[in-house]
């Protein structure tokens, strides 16, 4: 199925000629829904489409009849009628009735869809340029919190590893940390964003909800079977919009409980002592990671930025100037530019990433920023 390159041209031509049956192996419809609500939506789509096809065939049946039988070349003489109140009223009213018939099931489905009450678990999904942050707010697992970024290797995307791409069944639809939820439970997703609008979209679970900065929106789903469901950001959010996938892992209740426990121990282990005194080297190593996850998309791993769009940090006045200014910039962002606030990062993360930028590439300030100075400026 994944015949790339030249084969694609052949495929393109061949598929034109091939029969409808041959097409069936490709996905011609909505993804198979894995929720009850999704099934309803799926059926609703089927009904609307069928109605449209019937009317379409009917209308164009008439038209093609005329095209073949009422043509001048077969000697047909034009009639001169140009009005008929009865038919005109009929073809105004009949569509109207059909539409009302359609609106009824649509209304029911929509009302169910928007009912986010009585959720078992509430998770906040925050869109960032360009990753998702998840905070489990209520229900089993509350207080778990992590970021989720694309895990497809850059080389596959940039074409340095085409073989790897072709062998990767989840190309662009895989993350480092999946959202994990239990099966058969109503999961309420609260969406919001830190910078621009994103949208949380998982087709197989039939959810899509915009994540609007500064506002909370919600949606829900209840998965019927365990499995892994993949989706991606569905609102243009800047240059990496195509690269912020969402992967939902639905587990049985027992496995979920185990996952929650493992997350909590991990959290305790990872919890750094805020009073710890980091050395410059430690901060730099930690900072490089933070930079890779948060900053490199714009300022590039080389620190050279993208001319015209994202300034180089290497040699930057701000990075080599007073540290307070850089801390302030990172905490507040710069209004009206893509440089948004990073205050969602922890004190240590911010301290380390600032230290990293001030001691990398052509920058050699030799300063180690303490997390206390971040806290002081918050």
């Amino acid at each position, binding site marked *: 199925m994944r015949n790339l390159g030249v084969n694609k041209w052949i495929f393109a031509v061949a598929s034109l000629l091939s029969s409808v049956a041959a097409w069936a192996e490709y996905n011609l419809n909505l993804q198979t829904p894995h929720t009850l609500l999704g099934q309803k939506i799926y059926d609703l789509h089927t009904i609307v489409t069928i109605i449209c096809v019937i009317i379409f065939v009917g209308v164009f049946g008439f038209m093609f009849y005329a095209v073949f039988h009422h043509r001048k070349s077969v000697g047909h003489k034009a009639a001169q009628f140009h009005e008929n109140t009865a038919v005109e009223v009929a073809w105004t009213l009949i569509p109207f009735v059909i539409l009302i018939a359609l609106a009824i099931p649509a209304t029911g489905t929509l009302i169910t869809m928007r009912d986010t009450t009585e959720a078992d678990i509430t998770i*906040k999904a925050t869109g960032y340029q360009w990753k998702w942050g998840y905070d489990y707010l209520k229900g089993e697992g509350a207080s778990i919190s992590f970021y989720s970024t694309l895990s497809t290797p850059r080389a596959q995307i940039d074409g340095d590893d085409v073989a790897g791409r072709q062998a990767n069944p989840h190309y662009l639809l895989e993350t480092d940390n999946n959202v994990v939820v239990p099966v058969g439970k109503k999961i309420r997703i*609260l969406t*919001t964003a830190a910078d621009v609008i994103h949208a949380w979209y998982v087709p197989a679970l039939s959810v899509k909800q915009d994540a609007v900065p*500064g*506002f*909370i929106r919600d949606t829900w789903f209840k998965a019927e079977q365990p499995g892994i469901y993949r989706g991606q950001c569905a609102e243009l959010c800047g240059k990496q919009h195509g690269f912020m996938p969402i992967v939902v892992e639905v587990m049985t209740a027992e496995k979920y409980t185990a996952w929650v426990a493992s997350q909590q121990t991990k959290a305790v282990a990872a919890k750094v002592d805020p009073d710890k005194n980091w050395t410059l080297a430690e901060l730099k190593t930690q900072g490089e990671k933070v930079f890779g996850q948060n900053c490199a998309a714009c300022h590039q791993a080389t620190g050279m930025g993208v001319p015209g769009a994202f300034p180089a940090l290497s040699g930057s006045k701000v990075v080599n100037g007073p540290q307070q200014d850089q801390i302030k910039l990172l905490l507040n962002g710069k209004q009206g530019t893509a440089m948004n606030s990073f205050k969602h990062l922890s004190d240590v993360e911010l301290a380390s990433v600032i230290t990293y930028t001030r001691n990398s590439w052509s920058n050699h300030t030799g300063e180690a920023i303490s997390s206390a100075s971040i806290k002081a400026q918050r």
Partner: protein
Amino acid sequence: MSNQSAGGYYLPQPSHWPIVASIALGFLGFGASFSVNSMGLGYVLLGIGFMILFFMFAGWFTAVAHESEGGNYNKQVDASFRWGMGWFIFSEVMFFAVFFGVLFYMRTISIPDLGSLEHQQLLWPGFKADWPVAGPGIKDTFSPMAAWGIPALNTALLLTSGVTLTWAHWALLKNNRMQLIWGLALTIALGMIFLGFQVYEYSHAMSEMNLKLSMGAYGATFYMLTGFHGFHVTVGTIMLWVILFRSVAGHFNEHSHFGFEGVAWYWHFVDVVWLFLFVVVYWL
């Protein structure tokens, strides 16, 4: 070459004013883009653009006034002008409607939303959605503009100016040029006093009340609505000056005075916008 006319409808000769206008707007577009990004050249381009624009307006309107006085415009042309002006004012109504809509949306939808329980818990702790308010992320405070001071006075001024303008119109229909000129002069004076008050109000708001454009929902809607209105009063006043000069020069008579009426319509429109402004921006 004589002017073309068909069935008496005046068709102008080829004219260079449109292309001049388009060059002016090209300069203004690039100039404004560069200026807002603080690129040096921007102000130069903007300056050139405004100069050409001014030159174009002066030239084009002079040409029209000459054609009008030359008796080129018949009844049908006059009717065209009326339709044209009417639809232009309709487009202006829609423009103002947007900003009224924004104010309505902020007061009844976005701000209450931001102050709702879930938003307070998760995003904006402690935000109270009581109008007038700047917004949950703005720590600075300001005082809102009270309705019953200068704004009420300004309302009275504008309403009076509507009356004086109608008086001038009535004089024109009676062919009483003295009263026409007086009516126009009074209207202009009232308009300029209005503008003077507004300038004072703005400076007072900025220096004493900390009410700035950046003051969130209140500041932005306040300045955009009153600002665009003030801009329209300014334009209207300039047009009234033109009409005044033309009246002094003996233009217009009881049959042919579209120039006067177009401006009068515009002025009344600006008047009505102010009434809405007064109610929703200052009063409620």
